[in-house]
């Protein structure tokens, strides 16, 4: 069954790596719903957050292919319930519309939107949250003249993760400890071996 999976990849900060990772998806004709790259908690290590809709089997294989790339340290995949995630959205609306209509201001407050820029002609609001929330705000603003809208890629924190500092230390050793080469067989050993 296809589901939304969030893939988190820890990598070296290297030119061309984005392409190397992107073609793993495009080669298999898999659409990337959103992609974000940023620094991570560990210095010099980049973090990709990739959102796709696929079956777990496909996602697992994709992660193996991603991890196989020389400059990739680790790739994880998680379902919705295993992560805390947010997307940032920005809305440009006419300042007149807000000034004139109390309703609009109330709406924005209701959605936790924050004004980033206020000019005579337009105002830019931002809000962050899940897709449905940011989408709903578009709907309610549309009748009042939404001039421009943009939404960022998903960023996600893995609930069970202890961060990458310890792992990185292990990667830096010539002979890494066992846990950096984890795989799903370890957690499902009993299940796998009883087949």
């Amino acid at each position, binding site marked *: 069954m296809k589901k939304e999976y969030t893939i988190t990849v820890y*990598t*070296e900060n290297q*030119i*061309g790596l984005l*392409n*190397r990772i992107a*073609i793993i998806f495009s*080669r298999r004709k898999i659409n990337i719903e959103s992609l974000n790259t940023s620094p991570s908690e560990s210095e010099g290590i980049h973090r990709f957050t990739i959102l796709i809709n696929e079956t777990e089997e496909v996602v*697992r*294989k994709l992660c*193996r*292919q991603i*991890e*196989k790339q*020389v*400059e*990739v*340290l680790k790739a994880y995949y998680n379902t919705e319930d295993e992560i805390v995630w947010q997307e940032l959205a920005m809305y440009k609306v006419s300042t007149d519309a807000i000034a004139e209509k109390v309703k609009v201001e109330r709406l924005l407050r209701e959605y936790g939107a924050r004004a980033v820029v206020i000019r005579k002609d337009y105002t830019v609001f931002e809000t962050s949250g899940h897709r449905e929330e940011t989408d709903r705000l578009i709907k309610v603003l549309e009748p009042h003249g939404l001039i421009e809208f943009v939404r960022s890629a998903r960023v996600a924190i893995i609930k069970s993760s202890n961060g990458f500092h310890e792992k*990185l230390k292990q*990667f*830096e050793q*010539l002979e*890494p400890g*066992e846990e*950096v*080469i984890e*795989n799903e*067989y*370890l957690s499902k*050993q009993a299940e*796998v*071996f009883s*087949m």
Partner: protein
Amino acid sequence: MDTVITAPNKTATSTPKPTVSISGSQAVLDALLAENATTIFGYPGGAIMPIYDALYDYTNQIKHILVRHEQGAIHAAQGYARSSGKTGVVFATSGPGATNLVTGLADAMIDSTPLVCITGQVFAHLLGTDAFQEVDVINITTPVTKWNYQITDATEIPHVLAKAFFIAGTGRPGPVLIDITKNAQLQKFEYSGYEKCNHIRSYRPKPIIRKSYIEEAAKVINEAKKPFVIFGQGVILGKAEQELKAFIEKGNFPAAWTVLGLSALPTEHPLNMGMLGMHGNYGPNVLTNECDVLIAVGMRFDDRVTGRLDKYAKQAKVIHLDIDPAEIDKNVQTTVPVWGDCKETLPMLTQLIQPNNHTAWINRFREYAQQEYDVVIQNELNPTSPIMTMGEVIKTLNELTNGDAIVVTDVGQHQMVACRYAKFNQSKSNITSGGAGTMGFGLPAAIGAKFGAPNRTVVAIIGDGGFQMTLQELGTIMQFNVDVKILILNNEFLGMVRQWQQLFHDKRYSFVDITSPNFVQLAKAYHIEGNSIKDRSQLKNALQTMLNHKGSYLLEVMVGKENNVFPMVPQGCSVAEIRLQ
């Protein structure tokens, strides 16, 4: 300048390292010397001229083979790597020079061949300006390289090349491309010597071996009534031929090979049951769907091996030994994954398995082999018609070489026939384009194979079609006196495609009727001796003359125009549906 610039003693790191001022180009050549990569296949051009200029001073330490086309260079480097077990090195210029490497990169990528390709690039300040012969080589080659990198500053050269050799040759090997801008080649910098790379934190060439998997695998194997070992090139790349032999001998496991695993186990070994896959042997294919434990060693379940996947070995527990974790479960669901280098994992398994004989099970293979012999092999090797078959040519060649030659093949019917019937006593003896099926591979790969194993006889078996794809490399053979024996099996067709058209397209022979030049005269133009024969009575003598000839030789053998390679697993069928005719 003729000296090796050696790395200063590593222990003396407390004092600043002594440096010398050298150019980026010199650093490239010094790296090659340090890596003992002293045979290069290449072709010069504008953007790599500084490296070629530096090479001029290194010619008594580095052997550069000037090919006739960059595709020839990379296939030659592949042949070199496959016959020697070392990393092949290629030089090419920017733009078209670099793009001519792409087919070979793709081939080396899928066949896990270690290569370091060095391409020249336009000056860094011209990148992105559509400069003369500027091509975005890095992005073009990203899908077909294990790693690639563009150098724009000479100071990067030593450590990037060290990384390149480390990545190409370790783990699951593969091609690496390093693109060096012309300014970096020319730039002088303070060089403190070359240090080999043995660790990259984001790169794990070998997965950790887990004892629990080994134990579990041994348990499954010990319980097996009908175990079957299938092995691939991983055994050769891991130099684990002896370990494989010890493993199958202890458990008395019948074993079969993929096209790239061929020669890892001697042909005559009693447990060698033959070839897997589309044109493989009858027993190994049918019994894949009967075994109870399938032990796959260093192979990747290519579709040419598995046929229809949803009907592949469904009854069996699958144990998969591979160094590349991405291969586990990629195509076939594994019961027990044995991650690791099979050089290490096979002995661990061997220790835990019980000796066994499996006589009845092994006899099943022999029964199928007999059926295959009666229906297919007998006629192929001892035809009654006056027209020669490819199989009998290979059989006669076996008799004369006694299985000691390196056989390099091109792609098509002759390739499958050679793999099926050629005899091998030692490893690294079968060199062919497996995963990519690159026509034109054979001739240049044979040149490289000879440089990689100068003391062995190298026979290139090539079709009339494939030979015409890279025959320009006859020039390389001429210029460098490369002793390769070229055996053209001429069926006056693009045989393999014709076979498919006959079997699956109602014999509509659409553009497979290919004409050829007079190959013997062509060879003569390159000062290469040759002969062409049509009659069986001439075969043995002609082959003997070819093998005895000092230096390169071309022998064309006219074979049946519309012979087919059987058995065959038709596309979309299961391996058990293999057809004998």
